[in-house]
């Protein structure tokens, strides 16, 4: 521990701490703009400057470490003036459209301008208007609003390692641009939306589809149903200032009903369905490889629920197409079942059913617009709203979200298990799959405390587990004594690591779960801002709590699924399943490079 003084207050601080962190501990707020803890710490925007006694110039507190006897002043006139000038300079090159901006009241620049009492901008604006980029289904770029903090560049280049966004040109002409093109649709972008999740202003946002959903609800001829992804219930509360990790499934259900949806359902239902299909697919592949010694069977098998990962795979590793499970994502399975099985049940034409998804994800907007996602005969999922959009939607309808009572989701597409809940976080799909596959093969429950596969939990980038199978049922005897190796990666940079290791023969797995976003869907590109590791942990904890509190915790126990297979689908990987629930992928290696 070392002793420092901050604003004449004596404080103790650990060695190696930055002034910014030491200040936070001492309950002193220092403003930041370009800084993102553990992600980007370049010290370039200079908003966080402080005065240090004996040091000639102001120092950025986000990258300056404390030292013994340091005397720091965080709010002297010089510091305040410097910050004001930075804000004024940024504002002089920023359109003043706050009222009509997507980030109104949720903008870091706007907030700082208010906190620092900016009443006028002394610098004349040149304010060149740059064209709006609405070329992709998920992401909208508005370079005019960009303050060049480069957070999006860092997440795109270093966390996701997709490399779409990069600064272009120099000086005043600098813009953050996609690939070597002007439009995002002409560059390789996986639509993960991590850029939109970290943007401090309104320069990168998701495409707003709220009005289209209003229109569908207002149309009396349409039967509008909604599905909510597992990650929403642990994050939506944050849009209403509830603590991160507050479970709001009941209130969310009530709110969706109040909004006028004709059926409030759960993507979890389809997540359980995914486990049955994908688990069966894995076991079939293993059987073909081990018993039939079929060399053409592609192993390891990769999960396919994360549409950003699918986009990434198609662009960067199309050679893995045979390895990726053919299962559609839960969102698309839900759409296909809703417009066939469910439509029949309620006696509606599929053309009259509108499926709205609430997703933590911007890539889901892209996914539902894929041409092949029309197996019901029409577009399987019509509109996707992100968690943030749902928050706005609820506010637009004047619903007092925090104080409304809990309600239950509708049957049958609202019935699900705990295994589906954990689809929301990294390691969850794998755990859910193991819960079911192990029981199919051995007839016994997964032999772990509370059914959790501890080695694949948590926020490490790449996680592994091995499971020895013993005491198999007769038909699965070929798996007796086999050790199944699984791996889990979240964040595409980590996915890349795992793929490269497999390519060079360093690692051998049977089954790999990939989630596009750090932390999994709970850290998705459409989740409430700002997602930090602490918030990721809080959301994950909430999801596990939800799972543990369930009556059913294994996908194959879902009673509604049993009925679905009996009445409609037949069996996993059966003909109808194959047609409605499975898909194919495309080699896009040479597209948009």
């Amino acid at each position, binding site marked *: 521990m070392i002793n420092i003084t901050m604003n004449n207050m004596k404080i103790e601080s650990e060695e190696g701490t930055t002034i910014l962190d030491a200040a936070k501990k001492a309950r002193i707020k220092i403003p930041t703009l370009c800084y993102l803890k553990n992600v980007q710490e370049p010290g370039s925007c200079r908003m966080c400057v402080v005065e240090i006694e004996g040091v000639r110039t102001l120092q950025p507190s986000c990258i300056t470490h404390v030292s013994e006897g340091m005397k720091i002043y965080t709010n002297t006139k010089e510091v305040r003036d410097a910050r004001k000038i930075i804000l004024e300079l940024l504002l002089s090159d920023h359109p003043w459209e706050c009222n009509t901006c997507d980030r109104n009241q949720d903008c870091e620049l706007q907030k700082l301008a208010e906190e620092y009492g900016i009443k006028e901008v002394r610098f004349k604006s040149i304010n060149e208007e740059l064209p709006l980029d609405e070329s992709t289904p998920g992401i909208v770029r508005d370079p005019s609003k960009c303050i060049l903090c480069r957070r999006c560049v860092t997440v795109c280049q270093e966390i996701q390692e997709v490399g*779409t966004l990069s600064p272009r040109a120099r000086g005043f002409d600098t813009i953050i641009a996609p690939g*070597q093109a002007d439009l995002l649709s002409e560059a390789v972008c996986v639509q993960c939306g991590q850029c939109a999740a970290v943007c401090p202003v309104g320069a990168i946002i998701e495409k707003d589809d709220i009005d289209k959903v209003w229109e569908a609800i207002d149309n009396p001829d349409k039967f509008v149903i909604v599905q909510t992804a597992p990650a929403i219930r642990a994050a939506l509360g944050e849009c209403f200032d509830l603590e991160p990790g507050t479970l709001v499934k009941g209130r969310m259900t009530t709110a969706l009903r109040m909004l006028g949806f004709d059926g409030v359902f759960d993507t979890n239902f389809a997540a359980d369905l995914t486990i049955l299909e994908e688990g069966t697919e894995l076991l079939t592949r293993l059987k073909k490889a081990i018993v039939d010694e079929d060399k053409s069977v592609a192993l390891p098998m990769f999960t396919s629920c994360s549409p950003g990962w699918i986009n990434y795979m198609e662009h960067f590793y199309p050679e893995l197409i045979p390895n990726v499970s053919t299962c559609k994502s839960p969102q698309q399975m839900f759409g296909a079942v809703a417009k066939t099985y469910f439509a029949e049940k309620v006696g509606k034409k599929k053309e009259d059913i509108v499926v709205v998804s609430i997703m933590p994800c911007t890539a889901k907007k892209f996914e539902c617009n894929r041409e092949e996602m029309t197996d019901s005969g029409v577009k399987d999922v019509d509109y996707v709203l992100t968690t943030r959009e749902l928050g706005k939607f609820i506010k637009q309808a004047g619903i007092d979200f925090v104080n409304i009572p809990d309600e239950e989701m509708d049957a049958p597409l609202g019935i699900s298990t705990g295994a589906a809940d954990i689809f929301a976080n990294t390691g969850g799909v794998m755990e859910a799959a193991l819960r079911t596959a192990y029981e199919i093969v051995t007839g016994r429950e997964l032999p772990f405390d509370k059914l959790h596969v501890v080695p694949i939990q948590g926020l490490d980038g790449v996680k592994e587990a091995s499971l020895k199978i013993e005491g198999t049922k007769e038909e699965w005897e070929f798996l007796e004594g086999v050790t199944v190796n699984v791996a889990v990666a979240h964040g595409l940079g980590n996915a890349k690591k795992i793929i490269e290791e497999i390519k060079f023969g360093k690692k051998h797995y049977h089954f790999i779960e990939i989630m596009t976003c750090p932390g999994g869907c709970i850290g998705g590109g459409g989740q409430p801002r700002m997602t930090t590791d602490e918030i990721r942990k809080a959301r994950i904890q909430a999801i596990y709590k939800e799972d543990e509190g369930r009556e059913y915790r294994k996908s194959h126990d879902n009673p509604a699924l049993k009925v679905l297979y009996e009445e409609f689908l037949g069996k996993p990987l059966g003909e109808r399943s194959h047609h409605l629930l499975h898909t194919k992928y495309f080699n896009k290696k040479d597209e948009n490079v």
Partner: protein
Amino acid sequence: MTIKEIVDKYGSKRENLLQILHGIQNQNPRNYINKESISALSKEMNIPVSQIKGTASFYSMFSFIPRGKYVIRVCESPPCHLLGAESIFKAIEYKLGIMIGETTKDGLFTLEGTSCLGICGVAPAMMINEDVHGNLNEEKIFQILDQIQEQEKERIQLCREEALTRF
């Protein structure tokens, strides 16, 4: 040279990117870096296209649009400005009919401005491709440009004659 050969010549480490980009631009008859070469370079060096374009666009010596065979770079720094860089631009505009950033219809000349060329002692100055010209005035510029045009005419004539002899 293919992109691979250029990369091999300078080495595939990131720090060699600028030299490689110069190599690519210099061998292009229109003096620019096209989209296809950036894509190919990205694969060869394992650097995203966004970063290559971002790097190249930072430097004014690189172009992403076709330019003339001769790129005229007139110095715009203060010493040259004081000694009449403005009139140098005007003289070139008059002679070739192109403004800054434009290329002549015959594809021979492109006019650009540049920051200091480091020869303020002979201001105002300009570069035509790799050749530096100082102490410029209207007359001298006409002379230089006439000479190039003459050379090119002769060259074209020679090519024509050579082509005719083949019949």
